[in-house]
């Protein structure tokens, strides 16, 4: 161990001008932070394993005619949609729960840029997350087709893939928004699972709320994303309204809180 630094620049050197890190760089770092802890890595591994499991179940349980690439792929989207938002939540809340915010915001004092980078990183992850599903569904479909000639249809459209990606991205951003709003891992994860469920149950039970659910229940408004047909203008409007309530609003409130709060 030595007490001399092999730095290239003397601390007394004249001031250099430094450029601030680009959003691409910050987004890359945030993506890496999602995967470089055990919690993050295992969440991804488990999500992939469940995708394998749901495809395997279909091979045994579904009618041969229903054993298609489209069906298998779409079922892989549900474990992804449930578990990846937890990764989104942790990406934000672990900064507070593990107190790494102290380092993060000392490195990048423009807090809205970190929030933006986390948002972008989550969107990228949401897009990448459909890839394992595509692969698993393809393998499943080959097996299904070789076992039964009625199974194994490859019929699929680009629009379905686009909708699948959108579904995945909306869900992970949902997690980011909840994380930003509550800034605490346990609270955000519990509420992320409980609040939308209670909301769905309530709107089912209370007849006066039914029409509200058509607009503001994300699980209802995102259903058309699984149909073969393109979304109508009304369906887009309903999806946008529920995304506004569950993603945009928590994110905006969380961001306002983040910009003002003390980091300690």
């Amino acid at each position, binding site marked *: *161990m*030595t*007490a*001399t*630094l*092999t*730095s*290239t*620049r*003397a*601390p*007394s*050197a004249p*001031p*250099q*001008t*430094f*450029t*601030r*890190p680009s959003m691409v*760089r*910050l987004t*890359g*770092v945030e993506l*890496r*932070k999602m995967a*470089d*802890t*055990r*919690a993050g890595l295992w969440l991804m591994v488990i999500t992939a394993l469940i995708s394998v499991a749901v495809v395997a179940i279909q091979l045994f349980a579904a009618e041969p005619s229903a054993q298609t690439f489209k069906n298998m792929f779409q079922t892989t989207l549900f474990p992804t949609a449930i578990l990846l938002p937890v990764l989104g939540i942790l990406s934000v809340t*672990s900064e507070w729960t*593990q*107190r*790494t915010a*102290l*380092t993060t*915001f*000392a*490195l*990048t*004092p*423009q807090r809205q840029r970190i929030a933006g980078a986390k948002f972008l990183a989550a969107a990228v992850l949401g897009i990448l997350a459909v890839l394992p599903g595509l692969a698993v569904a393809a393998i499943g479909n080959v097996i299904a087709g070789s076992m039964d000639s009625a199974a194994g249809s490859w019929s699929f459209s680009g629009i379905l893939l686009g909708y699948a990606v959108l579904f995945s991205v909306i869900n992970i951003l949902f997690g980011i928004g909840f994380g930003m709003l509550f800034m605490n891992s346990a609270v955000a994860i519990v509420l992320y699972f409980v609040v939308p469920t209670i909301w769905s149950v309530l709107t089912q039970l209370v007849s006066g709320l039914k029409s509200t659910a058509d607009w503001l229940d994300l699980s209802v408004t995102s259903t058309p994303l699984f149909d073969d047909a393109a979304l109508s203008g009304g369906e887009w409007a309903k999806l946008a309204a529920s995304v506004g309530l569950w993603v945009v609003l928590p994110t905006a409130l969380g961001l306002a809180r983040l910009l*003002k709060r*003390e*980091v*300690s």
Partner: protein
Amino acid sequence: MISVTSLTKRYGAHTAVNDVSFECAPGTVTGFLGPNGAGKSTTMRMITGLTPPTAGASMVAGRPYRQLPNPAREVGVLLDASAQHPGRTGREVLTLSARTQGVGAARVDELLSLVGLAGPAETRRVRGYSLGMRQRLGIAHAFLGDPRVLILDEPANGLDPEGIFWMRGLLRDFADRGGTVLLSSHLLREVEAVADRLVVIGGGRIVANGTKAELLAAGGVRVRALDPVTLRKALERAGLAVTAGADGALTVQAEAEEVGQVAASISAVLLELRPVDTGGLEELFLTLTAGEPKETAR
């Protein structure tokens, strides 16, 4: 270069930092001293833009910290060595930071070996690090961007004596090459050994600010009497500046002879009379902060 102007932080009715001003010049190590809860960490968090001040301002490297485009390249910051994700390895912590700042991966290797964490330790998760190892990782992190200014909150905490000696050399060398260091501590001996200037804070206020030589020379004489109250009155009647220490001893800004004369004139029984010794920063520190309310750390 750090300049702090009238920084104040209030939490409701409680004033954690009250009108604090000081400057740290290039080429110097400034020791920021105070008991726990005196407002050191809050001040440092305000300087680094993490805590919004109620009033006042601060500049680092010529700008408010939050306006630095890539702060870590100009200011190395260590605020809390325990504030690391326990699930990341030491190397990963530095790699993330190096990527954010845009310094090469080679710099990570360089810093890991500088702080003695190269080898098996770098691939262990921070969860398994001792406080001393976390502190070394934090020091590596502060140096990573090759900055000209260092802001370190209690960096000696958890280091063993050898580690403290090592860190002292590291900071001295950095300052001697023209760097600016602000170093907080409640370990008086540590700061006394390395600092050029001292800023002492108690109860959120600056109670002393000057070069180490000035502050130590101002130590005066320490006197303990059977009846300190009467002696204090007599000393004050004689026009001498008296401060009461923590243990009932008085510190008088005068020569021992003067104090002795006053004591003799009122026939006071003295238990102790001596110049404040050169380890006197401790004395000074206790004197200056005695009677200040010890707030709990936030």
